[in-house]
């Protein structure tokens, strides 16, 4: 099976790219620019580190795609810190995270436990979210006057939704990236991911208007619609049936919206944990949900040749991989955060959410 939809995607890419590029100079130099810098740094480091860890020093498309996965984990963490950490701090954090990400993935999840996680629910979303949250906790509560800079407008909300649609459309490629050589597995990955995304999108729209007296909250739609893609990653190549995949998406969407509505204010108020983009709600909780669901879903396809163990053992290693990933991410994220993000005097003067501090551009 070839990924025949790629040509259509190319046209969509070009159209969206041309549209959004025209606005780059005015909107989000920091957002898009730092994303590019950190992605590059993280991929460079991951290519070397994961190559050394696995002993495979051949540069292939597979290793480059693995480096993209590492960058995805970093960008998830970035979401918890963006606007507050300086570019220097984020660069160092990016390098450190490429190391801890590879440690967790190569030696713990796929090495020690041999868990099932084809789409990166555990290794990418869970690790990235809890690493970033722990680092944000180490950074401390939001106390600067410039905190008021963190706000949205209708224009930025629309652009954010453009980003959401891009993520939504390409998410199946992300989940099925490592399965392009196997027709059955690739089909399961793509269909399960699409069904799950449909479920989370429907759930997000429904619950958002329910919680807001009939109106949709842009934050919910920009984020929680994608929660199905996060949750399905651990089980995407299992022959669970499209209905089960859809229900995984429904559950993830509900959890995500409830997280934005209840959890974020609670974490800020009680723990001083300021999660700028709400990565706990899009990546954290849905990934835990997806990891826990994988304990049950291996029942549907326990004879699959890609599972390492029998039914009971596979369920146990899925649970252990969830716990181990959370512990590894929290510990490494907190320690890295304490070392890298602790504000020396000069950093305390840096206004938050102000990309004009870091950019020169033609007016």
């Amino acid at each position, binding site marked *: 099976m070839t*990924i025949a939809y*790629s040509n259509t995607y190319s046209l969509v*890419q070009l159209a969206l790219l041309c549209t959004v590029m025209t606005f780059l100079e005015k909107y*989000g*130099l*920091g*957002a*898009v620019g730092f994303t*590019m*810098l950190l*992605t590059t740094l993280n991929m*460079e480091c991951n*290519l*070397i580190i994961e*190559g050394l860890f696995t002993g495979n020093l*051949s*540069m*292939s498309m*597979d290793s*480059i*795609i693995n480096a993209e996965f590492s960058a995805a984990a970093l*960008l998830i963490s*970035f*979401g918890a810190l*963006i*606007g507050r950490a*300086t*570019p*220097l701090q984020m*660069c160092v954090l990016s*390098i450190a995270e490429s190391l801890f990400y590879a440690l967790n993935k190569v030696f713990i999840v796929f090495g020690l436990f041999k868990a099932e996680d084809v789409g990166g629910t555990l290794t990418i979303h869970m690790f990235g979210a809890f690493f970033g949250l722990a680092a944000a906790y180490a950074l401390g509560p939001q106390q600067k006057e410039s905190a*008021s*800079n963190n*706000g949205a407008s209708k*224009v*930025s909300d629309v*652009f954010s939704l453009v*980003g*959401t649609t*891009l*993520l939504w459309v*390409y998410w199946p*490629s*992300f989940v*099925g*990236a490592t399965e*392009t050589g196997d027709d059955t597995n690739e089909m399961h990955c793509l269909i399960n991911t699409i069904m799950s995304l449909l479920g989370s999108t429907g759930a997000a729209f429904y619950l958002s208007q329910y919680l807001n007296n009939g109106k949709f909250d842009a934050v919910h739609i*920009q984020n929680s619609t994608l929660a199905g893609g996060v949750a399905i990653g651990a089980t995407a190549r299992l022959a669970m049936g499209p209905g089960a995949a859809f229900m995984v998406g429904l559950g993830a969407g509900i959890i995500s919206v409830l997280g934005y509505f209840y959890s974020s204010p609670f974490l800020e108020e009680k723990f001083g944990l300021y999660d*700028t*983009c709400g990565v706990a709600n899009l990546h954290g909780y849905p990934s835990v949900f997806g990891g826990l669901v994988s304990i049950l879903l291996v029942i549907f396809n326990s004879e699959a040749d890609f599972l390492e163990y029998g039914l009971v053992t596979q369920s146990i290693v899925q649970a252990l991989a969830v716990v181990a990933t959370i512990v590894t991410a929290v510990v490494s994220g907190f320690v890295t955060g304490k070392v890298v993000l602790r504000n020396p005097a*000069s950093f305390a*003067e*840096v206004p938050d*959410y*102000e990309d*004009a*501090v870091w950019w*020169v551009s*033609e*007016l």
Partner: protein
Amino acid sequence: MSGEKKSLLPVTSSGMADIASEMSGLLGTVIGVVQVVAAVVIFLLFSYDDVDAYTTQKYIVFRDIMVMLLLGFGYCKFIRVFNQSVYWYL
């Protein structure tokens, strides 16, 4: 519009330009060191994988994920955060 490069800093925030200037040495060092190390290590240790391991589909997947990371994440996650600062140069 002239092509002159100007600071985007708001005129009311005197001193903000110094922050970037103070950190430029370290920031440049971190970025530069990673480039040098990556160049040396990849040059000395890495080679191409067997061509049989390559399919066009893998490039397509690579491209799809790159769009997700650079545009999807850049916009979806982060564009809202810096919204207020754009008013300085509107």
